């Protein structure tokens, strides 16, 4: 699975592409780890942009919650943006919609993290 990253005034946007399931969830978790380590500064945020994620299994969802736990312990925050309808439905069935702050777009998610990140996003 490809994990595309972008940065906006310190906020990182990570966009997994494809399917996240039992077969690749541990690889995804390992790919996520450097961004979590780098985000070990207070107020630093991560947006998981799920607009290119076609499917997520229980093992993939677990990766999200582990990442959120680590970010929270470091004083940071992970939010979700841009879910496709199927993934949004899986979040609802799993009750992960109650665990994460979820936004319709990456811009909305960045706006929840910081004004600087939003401004950087708007500058393109």
């Amino acid at each position, binding site marked *: 699975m490809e994990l595309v990253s972008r940065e906006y005034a310190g906020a990182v946007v990570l966009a997994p592409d494809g399917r996240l399931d039992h077969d690749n969830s541990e690889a995804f978790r390992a790919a996520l780890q450097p961004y979590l380590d780098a985000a070990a500064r207070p107020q630093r945020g991560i947006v998981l942009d799920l607009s290119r994620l076609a499917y997520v299994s229980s093992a993939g969802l*677990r990766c999200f919650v582990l990442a959120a736990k680590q970010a929270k312990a470091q004083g940071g925050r992970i939010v979700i943006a841009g879910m496709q309808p199927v993934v949004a439905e899986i979040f609802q069935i799993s009750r992960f919609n109650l665990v994460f702050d979820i936004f319709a777009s990456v811009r909305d998610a960045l706006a929840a993290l910081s004004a600087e990140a939003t401004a950087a996003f708007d500058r393109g």
Partner: protein
Amino acid sequence: MRVRFWGTRGSIPVALTWRDLRDRIALALVAANGRALDTLEKAHAFAESELPFSIAATYGGHSPCVELETGSASYFICDMGSGARPFGAHVMARQAGAPARVNVFMSHLHWDHMMGFPFFVPAWVPGTQLRVHGCHPDLEAAFVRQQEPPGFPVGFSRLGAGFEFVQLEPGKTVEVDGVRVTPKHQLHGGDSYGYRFEAGGRSVIYSTDSEHKLEDTTETHDFVDFFRDADLVVFDSMYSLAEAVSVKEDWGHSSNMVGVELCQMAGVKHLVLFHHEPAYDDAAIERVLSETRRFEELTREGAPLVVSSAYDGLEIAL
């Protein structure tokens, strides 16, 4: 083979309150407004065909007790939760005075899985043969201890049945009265064991009180092998996935979504959600069932997996 559910609730029995009953009667009356339900037959037909299960019925409140009718003359029962009391009444009625032979398979020795045993009437009847199977070394001691004072007024030694405690080993298949039985170790506080039953070309898995570590691919593959091509899997789906991997991690239970995924990987035909959270009312269990069926649709790649939610009194013929 036929599977009959006598107790389906996890952790502790629950019962409808007067308020629950009053509210659902009110909902049923509103739904029936304008209908000419002037006979019991018409009212029954309306309740069965037009009302949601959570209004017309209830998932029920007994703690785990599941019977397998295998074609053998002896009874097969998984766990002795509070559902063992009505199961005992069923055995007494069916035997009509003839001695019964009952094979019990214990997933583990937690209270909710054996609390019904002192109220299992056939155990008090001389002539009954009771064979209690399990993988815990303190199987017999747990049954004896449950009836010691001050917890219960009549000691185990006063029971009239003949007892045999049979120690099983995980992964080792045994034949019990014509049924092949394979236990499997499961992750739960103090350990638990699932059972695979095979008879007459059918296979049933009883897998409750079992947490699944999603990051452990070896464990996942082991369970897929254990469930492989089963006709029916009775699965611990007590929590939502979000609870199971966060606030209730290491509490020893699983979720509906993991049940679907394992059963799909294993080519199982029918998944039964089991060990319902005692805090859930009937509407909540019904919603979980509906969402689980939807998740199965979303993730289906091969043949459809039938998904049901266990309720006290449910019977499934295989």
